[in-house]
C-alpha cells in the first residue's frame, strides 16, 4: 500500500486505516486542530498543583484583605469605601475614649490583642499587608525588567560589551543584598519610595545573570540566524525572537524573589531603618516589640505583638514560595540549573 503526496512517495503507511482509531481515545477531528500555547499548558499544570494553588489563594486573600482593610482615597476621591479593619491602624485607642489599655491579650474585641501604644494589632496586621505586598511586587517588576534588558544586551552582543557588563555584576555579587539596601537607606533616609529604591538599585543583578545565560543558549538556534538573515534589526531579534524563548526561568526567579524582597523590607523595618516608627508595616511592628518582649505589664509576656505580625510575613512568604515552586514545575524550567529560592536576605 502506498500513498502519493506531492512528489514524495510514502510506502508502508495506510492512510485509510488511520480513520479507525482506538475507540477509547478521546480524539475528535475538532481537537486535532486545537493548539495550546506554552503558557496555557503551564497554567493547566499549575492548576493541578494543590500546594501551589493553596499558596495562590492565600496570597490573593491577603491582597484583598490589605486593599479592603481601610478605605482608599486617591486625590480626594474615595475609590474603595470598605473598611474591614475594625479600628484605625494608627489610632491609639484610649486617646479616642475607648476602654482599652496597652498590651491587652487577644479577646473577641481585639482578636490579636493590642500593642504597647494600645493600638489594635489585628487592624495593623491587615493594613500592614499594603506596604509589604506593594513593595514586593513593585520591586520585583522593576528589577526583573531591568535585569531582562541588561542580561539580554550582554548575552546577545557578547564579546567585550558582555565582559564589561558581567564584571559590574561580579562587583554587585560581592556584597549581600541586605547590606547594599542598608547603605542606600543610610544615604537616602527612611520612607516608602526610599525602601523601593533600596531594593531596586542592585536587585536586578540576579535576573541579569540568569537571563544572560539563557540568551547565550537561545541565540544559537537557527531561527535567530534566519531572522538576522532576513534583515531584522538587533532590537527586533532580541525582543521578538530571543527573549520570549528565554523568559521562563525569569518568571520563576521573579515569583520566588517576591518573598526575599518582603523579608528584606521587613528586616529593614525591624532594624528601625524602614518606614517611620509607628508605621503599621509588619517589620516595623516587630521592632517596637523588641524592647518590650521581656517585660509586659503585670509580668505577663505580650507574645501576641510578636507572633501575629511575624506570622503574617511568614505566611505570605511561604505562600509566595509555594507559588514559585508551582510555576517552576509548571514551566519545567529546571533544566539543569538550580534557581535560587526566595527567602535568603
Amino acid at each position, binding site marked *: 500500500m502506498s500513498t502519493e503526496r506531492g512528489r514524495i512517495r510514502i510506502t508502508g503507511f495506510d492512510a485509510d486505516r488511520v480513520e479507525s482509531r482506538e475507540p477509547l481515545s478521546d480524539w475528535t477531528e475538532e481537537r486535532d486542530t486545537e493548539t495550546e500555547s506554552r503558557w496555557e499548558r503551564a497554567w493547566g499544570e499549575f492548576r493541578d498543583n494543590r500546594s501551589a494553588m493553596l499558596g495562590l489563594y492565600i496570597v490573593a486573600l491577603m491582597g484583598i484583605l490589605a486593599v479592603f482593610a481601610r478605605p482608599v482615597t486617591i486625590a480626594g476621591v474615595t475609590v474603595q469605601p470598605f473598611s474591614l479593619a475594625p479600628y484605625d491602624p494608627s489610632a491609639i485607642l484610649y486617646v479616642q475614649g475607648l476602654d482599652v489599655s496597652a498590651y491587652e491579650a487577644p479577646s473577641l474585641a481585639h482578636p490579636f490583642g493590642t500593642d504597647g501604644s494600645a493600638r489594635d494589632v489585628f487592624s495593623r496586621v491587615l493594613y500592614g499587608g499594603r506596604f509589604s505586598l506593594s513593595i514586593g511586587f513593585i520591586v520585583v517588576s522593576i528589577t526583573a525588567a531591568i535585569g531582562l534588558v541588561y542580561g539580554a544586551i550582554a548575552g546577545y552582543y557578547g564579546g567585550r560589551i558582555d565582559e564589561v557588563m558581567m*564584571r559590574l555584576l*561580579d*562587583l*554587585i*555579587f*560581592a*556584597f*549581600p*543584598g*541586605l*547590606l*547594599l539596601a*542598608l*547603605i*542606600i*537607606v*543610610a*544615604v*537616602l533616609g527612611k520612607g516608602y519610595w526610599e525602601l523601593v529604591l533600596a531594593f531596586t538599585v542592585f536587585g536586578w543583578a540576579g535576573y541579569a545573570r540568569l537571563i544572560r545565560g539563557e540568551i547565550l543558549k537561545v541565540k544559537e538556534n537557527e531561527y535567530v540566524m534566519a531572522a538576522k538573515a532576513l534583515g531584522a534589526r538587533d532590537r527586533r531579534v532580541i525582543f521578538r525572537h530571543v527573549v520570549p524563548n528565554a523568559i521562563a526561568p525569569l518568571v520563576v526567579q521573579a515569583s520566588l524573589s517576591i*518573598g526575599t524582597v518582603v*523579608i528584606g523590607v*521587613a*528586616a529593614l523595618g*525591624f*532594624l*528601625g*531603618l524602614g518606614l517611620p516608627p509607628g508605621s503599621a508595616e509588619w*517589620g516595623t511592628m*516587630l521592632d517596637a*516589640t*523588641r524592647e518590650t*518582649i*521581656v517585660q509586659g505589664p503585670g509580668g505577663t*509576656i505580650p*507574645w501576641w505583638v*510578636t*507572633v501575629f505580625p*511575624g506570622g503574617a*510575613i*511568614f505566611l505570605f*512568604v*511561604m505562600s509566595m*514560595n*509555594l507559588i514559585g*515552586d508551582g510555576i517552576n514545575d509548571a514551566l519545567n524550567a529546571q533544566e539543569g540549573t*538550580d534557581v535560587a*529560592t*526566595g*527567602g*535568603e*536576605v
Partner: protein
Amino acid sequence: MGLRRFIAVRVLTTIPILFGVSVFTFAMVHLTPGDPIDQLVALNPQISAAEEAAIRARYGLDGPVWQQYFTWITNVLQGDFGTVINVDQPVGPYIMDRLPQTIALGLFGWVIALLIAIPTGIYAAVNKDTLGDDLSRVFALSGISLPNFWLGLMLILVFALWLDLWPVLAPNKPLFSPAMLKYLVLPGVTIGTASSATLMRVMRSSMAEEMNKEYVTAARAKGLPERTVVLKHVLRNSLISVTTIAAFLTASIFAGAVVVESVFAWPGLGRAFVKAISGREVDLIMAITLFTGVTIILANLLADIVYALLDPRIRYD
C-alpha cells in the same frame, strides 16, 4: 591548563576584582549629592564660606572625587580606616574588637546548618518520594520562608521566656569561655536555619543525581552493603557540590549576622554596622562594607580552589 596554573590565574584575576570592590564601596557612599559638611553647614548657618572650606580641607573633602578615593585607599592600605566619631576610636581596633564575636556566631551557624542539612539531605535522597522526603521538603520551604529576625524573637519567647532555659542576653564575659557556648545556641540556630534549608535541598538533589550513576550500580553489584555504598561512595561525590554553594552561604550568613546580632544584642560586626547606618558613621560603614566584599571575594576564590582540588574532572578554562 594545569591545576597549579589554574590556581595562579584565578588568584591573579582576583586582584582587579578587589580593586573594583574598593571603588564600588567608595562610590556607594560618596557619589551621592551632599556630604557630611553640607549637613553641618545646613544645621549651623553661621559658618562662613571660608570656615566651610577649612573644614573640608581638614577632612580631605576639598579635592575631586578620584583624589578623595586615592587618599582613602592609600590610608586603608596602610591600615588606617578613619575614626568612629561617636566613641572617638580608630575604626581598625573597633572592628577587631567585634570581629571574633561575628566569626564565632557565623561558624556556629555553619556547624548547625551542616549538622541539620547533611543527614536530612542524605535521608531525603535515599528515601526519595516517601513521607520523610515530603517532610524534609516542607522543612526546607519553611526554613527559607522564615524571616530570621522573627525566628530569633520566637526562640527568645519560647526558650528564654516561657521555658526559662536560656537567659535572653549574653553577659559581658570573654568570648572564648565554656560558659559563652550556651549563649551562642539560640543566635546560632537562628542564623543557621535558612542556610540549612538551602544546603539540604542542594545535598538532596546532588545525592539523588549521584545515586543514578553507574559506579553505584557497580558498587552494589559487587555486594557492598547499601550503607557503605551511600555513605562512602555517593556521599563523597555529592559533598563536592556543597563546596560550590559554600561561598554563597557565607555571604548569606554575613547578611544574617546583621539582623540576628540585633535581635540578640550580640556585640558583633553586624550590630556595629546597623549602628553605623543609624549614626551615619561614614568611615565605619565603608570599612565594614569593604571588609564584607573582600571576605566574600576571597571565600569565592577559596571555594573555586577547593573545588578544583576535590574534583579532578574539572576542566580549567
